[in-house]
């Protein structure tokens, strides 16, 4: 067993439960964290709606990363709180707050050891969000073509070939090949041109 596997925290059960859509686990996540996150947001220039959105978005981000194999090395509640806190700071900055000083809810001890882990997770999440955002900026036909070409064919266990894509769309192979090439190049161009990518 390697070191990384040994370091997985017992609270990994929350990530696994989330990935499984386990109703009991998800409810426990809400029970343990909703009050604290609400208090964090309400004490820091937000309201209950903001708290609800923040909670949901961080939970969905954890779900996506959990699907990708996220391993937790600190208590879930701490991880979740820091993730919400950092995201809320970014949100306040987006709303034009020049200086953001966060007041943490009483009775909650920040575990600074967990911060780098959350930050590296968050960076990954931000990067993936950027990719998704840029993909959405492509036209619908580009999204469809790239989506089909990046879909696994259950019969072959391989990604659809351009020939298969052209037959799905009832288009000529030449057209699909040219168009897919253009769409890939456009997708990459959008990412390269984004200021956010350079920061990540």
């Amino acid at each position, binding site marked *: 067993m390697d070191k990384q596997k040994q370091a997985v925290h017992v609270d990994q059960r929350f990530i696994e439960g989330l990935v499984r859509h386990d109703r009991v686990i998800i409810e426990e996540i809400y029970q343990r964290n909703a009050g604290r996150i609400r208090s964090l947001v309400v004490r820091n220039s937000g309201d209950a709606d903001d708290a609800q959105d923040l909670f949901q978005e961080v939970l969905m981000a954890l779900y996506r990363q959990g699907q990708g194999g996220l391993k937790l090395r600190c208590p879930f509640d701490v991880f979740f709180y820091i993730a919400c806190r950092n995201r809320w700071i970014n949100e306040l900055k987006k709303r034009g707050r020049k200086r953001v000083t966060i007041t943490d809810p009483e009775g909650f001890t920040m575990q600074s050891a967990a911060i780098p882990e959350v930050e590296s997770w968050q960076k990954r999440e931000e990067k993936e969000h950027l990719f998704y955002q840029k993909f959405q900026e492509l036209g619908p036909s580009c999204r469809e073509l790239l*989506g089909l070409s990046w879909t696994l064919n259950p019969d072959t266990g391989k990604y659809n070939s351009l020939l298969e894509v052209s037959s799905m769309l009832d288009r000529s192979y030449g057209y699909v090949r040219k168009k897919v090439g253009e769409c890939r190049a456009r997708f990459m161009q959008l990412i390269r041109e984004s200021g956010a990518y350079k920061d990540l």
Partner: protein
Amino acid sequence: MEDQTETYEAYLRGELPESERRAFEQSCSDPARRADFEMYQAARNSIIHRRAIREKEHALREQIQPLSKRFFASAKKRNLWQRNRGWLRVAAIVALVLSAFVIIQSNRYDDQRLLRIAMDERPLSATRGSEGLFSYPEAMIAYEQGRWAEAAKALEMIPGDDSVYSEAQLHAGYAWLHIGEYQRAVAALSRALPHTISPDQRQNVQWHLALAELGESKDLASLQPVLEQPDHSYYAQARKLRKKWNSIWR
């Protein structure tokens, strides 16, 4: 950098012929090329992953909606107050300041305004005939039109033996009071006082005389003759005036 996404895609699918694959791997020793390839790989894999879990993600969103409502609902009831708390505080402070300003303004009287408010211009029930040299009716027209100085001067010239003498002096006193000529008002009202024909009229003249003396001397002792008589018709007004005269807002 020249677009290489077709090569990247073919490499990732394992579709590059051996020689091209080696050449590509060699080209990745260039850090810029490697970084570009890694970015393509990360973006591509991210989209593939996101699309693969798209439906599950949607299902989870649906699943957590009721929980979100349940756990954040109680707080939402306070939403209106929370959302507007800052503005409501500002509005309350502004309302408070405005109320204070209105209260202060409504209590801010200069002496003349204060005395004018306290006036009660009731005519004496004397016969309005005029046998004098100066026309009493014309003087009263000037008085009613607010030409105070003109009216007062004309009224003062009504001779002492005229039947409207006391009424003329009383109105001359009122007119001088209107324009803050307190000394002249005191003189006119003092002339009217001995000629009053009823207790009510006497108290009316006493009151205006007190006002004129107060205006002249700025001494509240002028009100004393009225304040000493609780059954005086102007007793309550005298107390009110004393209070306003001493008000801290003035």
